[in-house]
């Protein structure tokens, strides 16, 4: 089927103003935040509603054309780059806040709504969503949930999105049918509960990187805005003591002492670990107690207290956008994933060795806590013009080493993401995902080549 026919059909579905096959447009959509090389789609389409998405998916099946799905493009692992061309579906025109239910404490948003936009709307009603990530102001909720995202903001207490705060989805399946998940499925029931309907198919989609369906709406748990908060900043001389603090803070699972706990060591200051802590709550006395308790913990473990502003300035800008993030070059998060609460030091040593070996001067090893674990990352800053090759070597070495030590990747993406590292490690699990993918998406339409290799290529 010729390109022109698909183009005309897309125009029929969404209108001329929302489809493009201009070469310059395809380049504008050719990269994400990762160092992956540009990938060109054949068309970019910007649907405004789920029904249009369903029509596009049906069209793609009819013509065996792949679809890659993009929020605002902030993926770090080439998770939407159009490896095999086809249709690039830009979901940012679906950015509405559908409903905020103050009674049931839920919010329903369209997939292209950003965290920041939702936060601002919730704040007007003295509500908040407490577990967000640090993808910057343009990070969409759909993009975040589809990769099971989570940043330093709120994860120490609430964990990642998948753990409790996503209540259900409206989804377009790879063959074009529309379904809902969670209590939304039931007639006359609002989306207030995720479980209770057999297997957790909401969970199946979280972290699926879009291969099982296109999420068009998301129902989220929201909470009253915390009335009190406290910030602490500590420097430590080693990670072993930081781990002890993290262990103690997250030990009472469900009643974690801190809301956010974020740590980092920079190449510029080896052996110095800065720890930023955010404590929140609804009762002043409890906040005061927890703040003192965490402070005592840090001091007991040889932490040296610093200016709490270093923590408040960081956490207050995590969602709206941290300043000077590219002041010394472009970002790349290599070797990012989750490890159990006591395992950090091994990774730090590996990072130090590799960075030293390659004399890579612009790097940070970071970690943020979640209940009984850490997300760790090796943050690399580089000049794309002069340091690209070196970056790729260092990044590959870090990825290999971290997987060898043993960690769970944060995001996988395509062949230029972490996919090559997981393929042989996942064994039967990898095959199982491919089987599910094949049964849901027999034509391998959605995100072919992302997360796992498809059975059949478009």
């Amino acid at each position: 089927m010729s390109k022109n026919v698909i183009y005309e059909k897309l125009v029929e579905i969404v209108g001329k103003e929302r489809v493009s096959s201009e070469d310059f447009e395809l380049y504008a959509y050719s990269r994400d935040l990762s160092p992956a090389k540009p990938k060109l789609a054949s068309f970019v389409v910007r649907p405004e509603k789920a029904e249009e998405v369903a029509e596009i998916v049906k069209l793609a099946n009819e013509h065996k054309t792949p679809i890659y799905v993009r929020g605002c493009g902030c993926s770090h692992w080439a998770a939407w780059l159009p490896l095999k061309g086809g249709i690039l579906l830009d979901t940012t025109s679906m950015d509405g806040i559908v409903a905020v239910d103050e009674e049931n404490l839920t919010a329903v948003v369209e997939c292209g709504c950003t965290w920041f936009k939702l936060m601002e709307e919730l704040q007007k009603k003295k509500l908040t969503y407490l577990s967000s990530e640090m993808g910057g102001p343009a990070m969409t909720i759909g993009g975040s949930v589809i990769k099971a995202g989570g940043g330093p903001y709120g994860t120490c207490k609430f964990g990642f999105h998948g753990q409790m705060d996503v209540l259900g989805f409206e989804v377009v399946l790879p063959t074009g049918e529309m379904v809902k998940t969670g209590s939304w499925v039931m007639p006359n029931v609002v989306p207030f509960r995720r479980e209770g309907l057999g297997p957790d198919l909401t969970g199946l989609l979280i972290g699926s990187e879009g291969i099982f369906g296109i999420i068009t709406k998301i129902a989220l748990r929201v909470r009253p805005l915390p009335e009190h908060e406290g910030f602490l900043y500590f420097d430590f001389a080693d990670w072993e003591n930081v781990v002890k603090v993290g262990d103690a803070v997250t030990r009472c699972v469900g009643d974690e002492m801190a809301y956010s706990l974020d740590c980092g060591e920079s190449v510029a200051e080896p052996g110095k670990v800065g720890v930023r802590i955010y404590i929140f709550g609804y009762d002043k006395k409890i906040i005061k107690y927890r703040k003192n308790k965490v402070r005592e913990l840090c001091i007991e473990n040889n932490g040296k207290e610093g200016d709490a502003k270093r923590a408040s300035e960081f956490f207050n800008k995590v969602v709206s956008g941290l300043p000077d993030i590219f002041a010394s070059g472009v970002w790349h998060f290599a070797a990012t994933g989750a490890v159990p609460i006591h395992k950090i030091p091994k990774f730090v040593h590996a990072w130090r060795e590799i960075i030293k070996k390659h004399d890579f001067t612009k790097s940070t090893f970071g970690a943020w806590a979640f209940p009984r674990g850490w997300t760790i990352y090796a943050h690399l800053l580089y000049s794309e013009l002069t340091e690209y090759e070196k970056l790729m070597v260092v990044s590959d070495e870090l990825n290999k080493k971290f997987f060898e030590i043993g960690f769970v990747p944060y995001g996988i993406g395509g062949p230029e993401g972490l996919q090559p590292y997981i393929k042989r490690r996942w064994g039967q699990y990898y095959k199982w995902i491919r089987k599910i993918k094949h049964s849901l998406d027999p034509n391998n339409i959605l995100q072919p080549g992302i997360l796992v290799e498809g059975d059949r290529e478009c």
Partner: protein
Amino acid sequence: MLIEDYKEQIYNCGRCGYCIGAYLNHTCPSRFIAGFESSTGRGRMLIAQALLEGKLEYSENLVFMLYTCFLCGACSTKCELAAKIKIVEITKAMRSDSLNSGIQLEKLVPGAKAIIEHHNIYNEPSEKRTAFLTSDIKISEKASLLYFPGCVITFRYSNIARNALKILNMANIDVTVLGEEEWCCGNPLYFMGMTEAAKKIAQHNVEKIREKGAKTVLTSCAGCYRAINQDYKKILGQPLPFNVVHITQFLDKLVNEGSIILRKSSLKKITYHDPCEIGRYFKIYEEPRRIIQNVPNLDFVEMPKHGDNSWCCGGGGSVNIVHTYQALKVGELRIIEAKETGAKTLVTACPSCVQMLELASKRKRTGMKIIDISELVLDALRT
């Protein structure tokens, strides 16, 4: 290619999307009207990379897209937080490069031709440049202060010049004008990437201002202010032999010194629109607000988007010439925002903003009055 000069910056874009902002379709007016990634700073950096690598060539459609950019600086201001990429300058360089590669949009030709041949964008005769100088305005042949009204004020909003000059007269400040010798500041040519033609204009205006003995050039037009203050220095490669001051800065100083006393206003509730070319470009935010706040009994209310987050009136970057209808949509969004504050009058400090917002107001039937800040001040001096 001129974009070669910005190569390092172009490749330093981390594609974080700060330039797009959290309100994906309402942070950048270019994205608001075009919707696709090519209308964003980040998208344009990827296009620039492809152009530099020879993977992409300029086409009429690409240039058409480049003219969805209002050059309002919303993206650059956001990028100040991230990579500090001069997105506006790079977009202008892309416009220049496209022109050098032989692509010029037909819609832009008449305006450019008018400026080059008649030295104003309206094809008006030079003799009309002094029409705003009514007998009640006192002007010197030579003075250390020169008022530069610019084309839009001279030929379409002469009341703005008269108001400004009357205030200067009331404060006993000696002032001169270039009159028939004034040429368009060249701002539209910079927007169109026509740097050579713009250079001739800059040379002419600077020479004539020098001949008048002026040490300070005062203008009520944000576009003229930016062009003379920023582009002239760059294009002539040397410092200017005079200072450039915007009317908001000048009036603020007069009020602060007590040279003029604002007594009362006939206006009631007002809001203020920040023109991009004095706002985001030069951070002239406090001066107009101080003037307004010095008017007794005036109810001033901010629009949600103000200061660095202000929304363009739709008149920037020559977009209104190429995408007239879409540019109006941008202005309409702004006037609706102004209306929603409850203000009856919108004050601004640029004739192009007045023009676009008046048009938008008529189309949306808001009934709002759009005035330049000099009118507000003169009213407060007279009432």
